[in-house]
């Protein structure tokens, strides 16, 4: 883990959404962000635990850290620098 305290630049609330909508929304949000910016994502879809890191690995972004907060999950996703 690069750092324990992660500050976010924006928050995306995906609570109540089911597969595949969390990754669809995250994809759209991250597309509008600058490299290095961090979005904090709230989600209730349990599949997101596997889906969000897989999505990040495939798209060159990074799940900096995630945790459970009561009834929902919290992910911190940092936008990567375009590779290609």
């Amino acid at each position, binding site marked *: 883990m690069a750092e324990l305290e992660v500050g976010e630049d924006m928050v995306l609330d995906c609570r109540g959404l089911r597969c595949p909508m969390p990754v*669809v929304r995250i994809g759209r949000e991250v597309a509008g962000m600058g490299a290095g910016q961090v979005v904090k994502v709230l989600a209730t879809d349990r599949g997101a635990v596997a889906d969000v890191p897989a*999505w990040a690995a495939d798209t060159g972004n990074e799940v900096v850290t995630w945790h459970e907060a009561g009834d929902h999950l919290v992910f911190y996703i940092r936008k990567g620098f375009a*590779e290609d």
Partner: protein
Amino acid sequence: MSIDVSSGGGLVLTHEDVRQIVRQEVERALKRDPAARRACIIASKGTLDWAYPPLILASAAAAAGMDAAVFFTFYGLNIIHKDFGRRVKVSPVGNPAMPMPVPMADTFTGLPGMKDMATAMMKTKFKRKGVAALEELLQVCRESSVRLIACALTIEVFGFKESDFIEGVEFGGAGAFMSEARRSHVTLFI
């Protein structure tokens, strides 16, 4: 690992070095492989339950930055029909896996009106659980440039017209699908 190639004649590569270089090059090549960024899905079923998987997977593929195409054939054409709201239904008949509130015989679930009831129940349940409606998933697909291709053969056999289908649908045959599929690592028949 770094290899000093400037020390004139002093370069010694071990088998392990060569293996590592090959591994890195292969990994790099795989990352650049355009087929890894393409998904090609056939949607062949036209019931409410079977309409979900191709649209969910195509949306997820697009969200992961892939070029996705869904080829709708046979009953799958229902999903992109302008009237899909009324055409795409689900029936418990002949599906012993469908969860029912109480066990029911096929002769009962086959009665007139039961299909509409089962469809309404499934839609309500999905909505209550926060599952996106088919309309929403189709919208996501179109907004994220998923190609929706209708099978020209089935359209003719079933007596549809091209104008029966929603905006943005393309038309093609097995050749069009294969041309997409051979350039895609992900190909699914649903």
